[in-house]
């Protein structure tokens, strides 16, 4: 095929030749590679400038092979019928924490490529996003990728996909994004199968925001899909959820670098820049209209991002606190879902209680803070949001275990999720056992193919946040995958377990757990701390308590001797340096009451959940 010679101009493109589509895929099933290949085949990226995973702009995305922020790229394409089409590839985030963002990206499309690794089959998150796409009435084009791999089993997985979406296995396309085999055919199928957008060019403008990104030089860049009418440059637009108005300083399309235009028209996908500096003023899911002639109704579906998981972030070095604040302020410009407020911890000093969409979101924010802002951080064990109803009817929202009330509690409500686990059938028993210990409730299970099963559970989110991924992965040798979405709350017998060191509660270790598990948590935490905290000059009891009741106890015996023998041959320097080094080590200790606790002890004691977050991100 050839490169389009005179690509249709943005703002003046007939909707009939537009195809808006996205790729639904699991992490590392090859979405970014496929997107790269599309850029190459349509000729919009010079081969000399091609670099792997072109569309993933952030370092972290490139390194982890995952896409956090979606972007849209306009690909002019001369199809088999010799007509020139405009393909808008809308890149979707591929992760459970970003379900809402995914749903908005999907709402901007008429079709979706379901991309599945021919050696691994479909994964839970892909399945969840597929269901979302089906709910949005998108045309699905099923594709198996990596058919060049020796381990590929295209027939098996084609049958699996066909079973799930109800199509003929023969219609599943087979490509290798790596070598390019089948990619051009795929683009032709997109042209053939994905419906052209339909919208009213003369109606009051309505455009869906499916992403907004903060850029240091330009301010917020908002990505929109125009549903009706057109969005011109140098005009006043209105955000329908807030009623705020802004001037469009620039509008355009990405191909794959920004190209400004006079307008973006009906059915098109593009960007607009208004000069606002905070993505909160340009929220994903909101409807953009023109201030002078506003639409009567928004496109619907807008939702404020709701933080589901909270964690305290503390600088290892207390003097970095102002830097942490500044870094969070900057990240916030680009992350409408991130919330935080200052908090102090007896154990960890000054920090912030931060709210995240989920564990991956937490991990990404933490990693960006460490990498882009050069901060060393401790994060406390992630916890969910509890709604505590007191006997007198008063309600308290708890985002930090240390705020859990001590008085007369009538009921505690915890958030629940509906989860989907895909697994080889041999692990069904192990997963049932795991979910049972995590207070799960089996909703049903289906065989996707002979040996692959979809299991559906409701689970308390708190149980997932507490090392569920680690356990799931280790019980299934890494084969099972998980997706979940919030599904209300339930009342449960939950208690706060405090950990006391020498009588002083260590706030960072308090946890809200089910009463049946309180004892185990207390015993495990006390034992862990006993090993991690060095002996002091006095005996240090470690206690786990529910209210005033002690449920577990360990004792760190007093150190009796630290003195080193002689200074051999008058080697005073060596001894002095040794003691100086020891003293340096002590400086990094935190005082809990009179007890010196090394930073490493806090990190290690809080580590289970950190590992879980990492396992999940992999």
């Amino acid at each position, binding site marked *: 095929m050839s490169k389009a010679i005179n690509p249709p101009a943005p703002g003046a493109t007939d909707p009939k030749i537009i195809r808006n589509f996205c790729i639904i895929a699991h992490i590392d099933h090859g979405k970014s590679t496929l997107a790269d290949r599309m850029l190459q085949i349509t000729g919009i990226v010079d081969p000399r400038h091609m670099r792997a995973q072109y569309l993933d702009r952030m370092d972290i995305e490139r390194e982890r092979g995952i896409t956090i922020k979606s972007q849209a790229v306009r690909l002019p394409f001369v199809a088999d019928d010799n007509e020139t089409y405009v393909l808008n590839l809308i890149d979707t985030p591929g992760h459970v924490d970003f379900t809402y963002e995914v749903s908005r990206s999907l709402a901007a499309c008429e079709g979706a490529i379901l991309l599945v690794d021919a050696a691994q089959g479909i994964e839970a998150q892909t399945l969840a996003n597929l269901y979302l796409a089906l709910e949005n009435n998108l045309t699905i084009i099923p594709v198996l990728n990596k058919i060049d791999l020796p381990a590929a089993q295209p027939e098996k997985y084609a049958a699996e996909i066909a079973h799930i979406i109800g199509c003929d296995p023969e219609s599943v396309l087979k490509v290798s994004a790596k070598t390019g085999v089948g990619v051009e055919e795929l683009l032709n199928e997109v042209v053939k199968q994905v419906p052209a957008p339909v919208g009213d060019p003369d109606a009051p403008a309505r455009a869906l925001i499916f992403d907004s990104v903060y850029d240091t030089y330009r301010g917020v860049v908002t990505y929109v899909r125009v549903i009706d009418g057109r969005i011109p440059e140098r005009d006043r637009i209105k955000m329908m959820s807030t009623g705020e108005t802004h001037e469009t300083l620039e509008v355009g399309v990405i191909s794959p670098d920004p190209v400004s235009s006079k307008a973006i028209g009906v059915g098109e996908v593009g960007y607009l820049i208004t000069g606002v500096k905070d993505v909160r003023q340009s929220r994903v899911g909101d409807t953009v209209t023109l201030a002078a002639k506003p639409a009567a109704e928004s496109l619907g579906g807008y939702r404020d991002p709701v933080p589901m998981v909270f964690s305290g972030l503390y600088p290892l070095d207390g003097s970095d606190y102002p830097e942490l604040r500044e870094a969070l302020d900057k990240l916030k410009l680009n992350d409408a879902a991130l919330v935080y407020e200052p908090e102090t911890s007896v154990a960890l000093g000054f920090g912030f209680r931060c709210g995240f969409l989920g564990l991956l979101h937490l991990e990404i924010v933490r990693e960006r803070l460490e990498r882009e802002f050069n901060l060393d951080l401790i994060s406390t064990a992630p916890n969910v949001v509890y709604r505590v109803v007191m006997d007198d009817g008063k309600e308290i929202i708890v985002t930090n275990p240390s705020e859990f009330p001590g008085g007369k509690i009538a009921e505690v409500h915890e958030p629940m999720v509906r989860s989907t686990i895909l697994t080889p059938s041999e692990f069904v028993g192990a997963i049932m056992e795991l979910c049972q210990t995590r207070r799960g409730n089996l909703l049903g299970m289906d065989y996707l193919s002979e040996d692959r099963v979809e299991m559906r559970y409701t689970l308390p989110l708190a149980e997932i946040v507490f090392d569920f991924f680690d356990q799931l992965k280790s019980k299934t040798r890494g084969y099972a995958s998980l997706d979940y979405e919030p599904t209300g709350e339930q009342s449960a017998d939950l208690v706060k377990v405090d950990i006391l060191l020498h009588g002083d509660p260590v706030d960072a270790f308090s946890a809200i757990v089910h009463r049946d598990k309180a004892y185990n948590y207390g015993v495990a935490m006390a034992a862990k701390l006993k090993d991690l905290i060095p002996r002091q*000059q*006095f005996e240090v009891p470690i206690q786990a308590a529910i209210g005033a009741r002690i449920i577990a106890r360990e004792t760190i*015996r007093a*150190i*009796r*001797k*630290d*003195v*080193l*023998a*002689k*200074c*051999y*041959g*008058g*080697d*005073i*320097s060596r*001894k*002095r340096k040794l*003691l*100086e080094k*020891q*003293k340096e080590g*002590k400086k990094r200790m935190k005082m809990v009451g009179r007890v010196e606790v090394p930073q490493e002890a806090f990190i290690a004691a809080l580590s289970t959940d950190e590992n879980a977050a990492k396992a999940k991100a992999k």
Partner: protein
Amino acid sequence: MRTLSAYVHIPFCASRCGYCDFNTYTAAELQRDGTSITTATYPDRVIAEVNWLRKDQASDNRAISTVFFGGGTPTLIDSKELVRILQSLKSTYGFTDDVEVTTEANPDSVTLQDLEILRAGGFTRVSFGHQSSAANVLALLERTHTPGKTWQAVSDARNAGFEHVSVDLIYGSPGETDSDLSETLDQVSAADVDHVSAYSLIVEPGTRLAARVARGEVPNPSDDVAAHRYELIDAKLQSLGMTWYEVSNWSKPGGECRHNIAYWRNQDWLGIGPGAHAHSAGTRSWNLKHPAAWAARVDEGISASAESEVLELSDIRHEEIMLGLRLREGLALSTLEDSGYAQAQLAVSEGLLDPVAFEEGKAILTFQGRLLADGLVARLWA
């Protein structure tokens, strides 16, 4: 004015003990390294270094007040040669009237005749490396002497006219029991010694013992056990009329090792021989470690020093606290800065420092404080 001492290092041993990381070599090792240094050729090199040092420090007119021959095993050198080395120090620097001259000695390699020669040649004090009376402990430490030899040597030393006789003990070795230690202490009490040094076994990296501990063949000695053994030692020695004058050293009145005290009081000393450390007016220096490298410098008539460190004021203060706190005479509280003083006050309440001495302006360790001195030092630096 600071006093001047001299440390003479004798880097030879008949065999290497499994726990030892000292700068010492067997004849076989030296031969393998291709050096011509032997116990016979060594004394001339030492005397050459003494002469060189004297010339280098011609303006220092202090006489030497203590000399210590350490090792290694000094008594592997012919006694007359040790005396000849001592004479070279005396003729170059001069000695104070009450000069103390100590040599370490291995009970295995010293005879009554040797001891008589040493005593007649000006040595005043001898310190025997006894370590333990328990055969299992001696075997673990890879010491070659049988316990009885030490007591024979002590008696020989007395007969040769030595006024001060000391033994070194090592406690807290893997496999040592409380009764092993009691047996050792009973033998000490029966012997005519006026000084005991007792060190808890430290598993030093790179030693055979460390390798055995790493392989799990022997357990790592526990600090709790060591603390308990220290209690046993302190109690027994007190009953013998010995009191601690430094954390690891006990003596009868007048039996203190003045050379040792000179270290803790941060005085000046010459370091002679391979790897020997020296201290002079705020500068610490140390010689090249290997006997061959050291000897090559001496033969060329240039300094054998490997490196030196000019101490900053803060280093000096740190050292004064670190050293002074270990002595029974204690540390003047005026040495401490405000934050260190506050820590000292706290340490009194914790039972680590003596409250009466504190009122008198001194930081003196209590019994418990002696066992926890290192941690306290770091706090007093503050």
